[in-house]
């Protein structure tokens, strides 16, 4: 059972860890975008059936980027439906889509007061779920671009609702990892710092006569 002091210490540790992870360290953005591009290109190559269609991810040119502050975090998706079609490019901000949610989740897991085995299980499942969300962020616009999901079809509506509910809103880059963490902690370790009477600790019983 956590005391208020422990709780404050853990909240402070979380904020410190998050600040360290989100600080714009040199090369972090570039490395993350490169890893993302490699994984996304493998995924897209496996998923695309049409030999004429092309989709390729490549890191944005920082010097030419319209958004200098987030330039190194941007990747550019180039799509060509057929050999005769024009090349379409879409810029994706990978920091907001992938890095911040993962960093937030990792910081939350590290300060969670549970044993190492459970922490590892929560971390593994949570990161997998957040990577699934990231892959949806890529797959849904691609499916729409290649006409797999028509705009006025139930599949298109569902895709649109999924995209705008789970991926697009800026608040969700923090809300998604927080909800994922809370759900996994509730499943894996319900006694998280909470007593039967409340949070963080039950008040002492009133004296009775």
């Amino acid at each position, binding site marked *: 059972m956590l005391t208020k002091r422990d709780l404050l210490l853990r909240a402070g540790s979380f904020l410190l860890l998050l600040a360290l992870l989100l600080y714009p360290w040199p090369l972090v953005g570039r490395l993350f975008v490169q890893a993302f591009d490699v994984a996304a290109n493998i995924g897209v190559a496996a998923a695309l059936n049409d030999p004429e269609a092309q989709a390729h991810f490549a890191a944005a040119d920082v010097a030419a980027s319209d958004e200098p502050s987030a330039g190194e975090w941007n990747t550019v998706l180039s799509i060509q439906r057929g050999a005769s079609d024009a090349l379409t490019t879409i810029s994706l901000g990978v920091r907001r889509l992938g890095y911040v949610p993962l960093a937030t989740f990792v910081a939350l897991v590290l300060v969670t007061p549970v044993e190492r085995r459970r922490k590892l299980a929560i971390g593994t499942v949570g990161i997998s779920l957040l990577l699934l969300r990231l892959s949806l962020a890529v797959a849904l616009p691609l499916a729409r671009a290649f006409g797999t999901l028509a705009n006025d079809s139930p599949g298109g509506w569902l895709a649109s609702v999924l995209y705008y509910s789970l991926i697009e*809103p800026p608040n969700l880059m923090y809300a998604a990892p927080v909800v994922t963490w809370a759900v996994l902690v509730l499943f894996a370790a319900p006694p998280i710092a909470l007593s039967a009477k409340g949070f963080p600790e039950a008040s002492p019983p009133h004296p009775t006569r």
Partner: protein
Amino acid sequence: MRARKKVTKAARERGRRALAQKPSAVAESEPVGLFGARRTVAPFLGRFVIVAGIGLGLYYFPYDPRSFPARCMHHYLAAYAHLAGAAVRFFDSRVRVIGTDILGRFNLTFAMNCDAMDVFILFSSAVLSFPSTWRHRSLGLTAGLVTLVTLNVVRITSLYWVGVHFPRAFELLHIDLWPMAIVGATSGGFLLWARATVSASGTPSADKA
């Protein structure tokens, strides 16, 4: 002495039986948390997913722009923009609001997601799914709504101010810091409400839902 010992034993036995009959009583092996026991977590999460899914689906559905829900949404966003514009006018009397646009020395457009509805839907889904009484739920929802609207109006006012005086910091505040603050406040608000509702009604019980 013997008679006293017998009474004590009987009293202990009665106490044990009463504890075993209490709905909140759980086996020692089952962890006790904010939700009373692990078995109440799954129904809570199930209800949370359903309620949040319905709420997010209704909000993010790609309505036809001429349809009734789309027009309602536009009026709602315009009303919210007027509320935020009135707050901004405290600091800059030249600010005016046209439709969903807040126009002044720095222009803001009030779009979907600017109302933090995604976070409110998640919060209200958690409150509605939590084992509690309807009185506590309605109190939680009202307090959450008022707090979130107030926080959001403060957010828009600060964004306008930063946009006028420190335009380079606008993106950092808009995309990074305010979402973190809103998600943190909402999560903390839910925990406080859950603690208060559990303290007020004893231990949580799944059958109140």
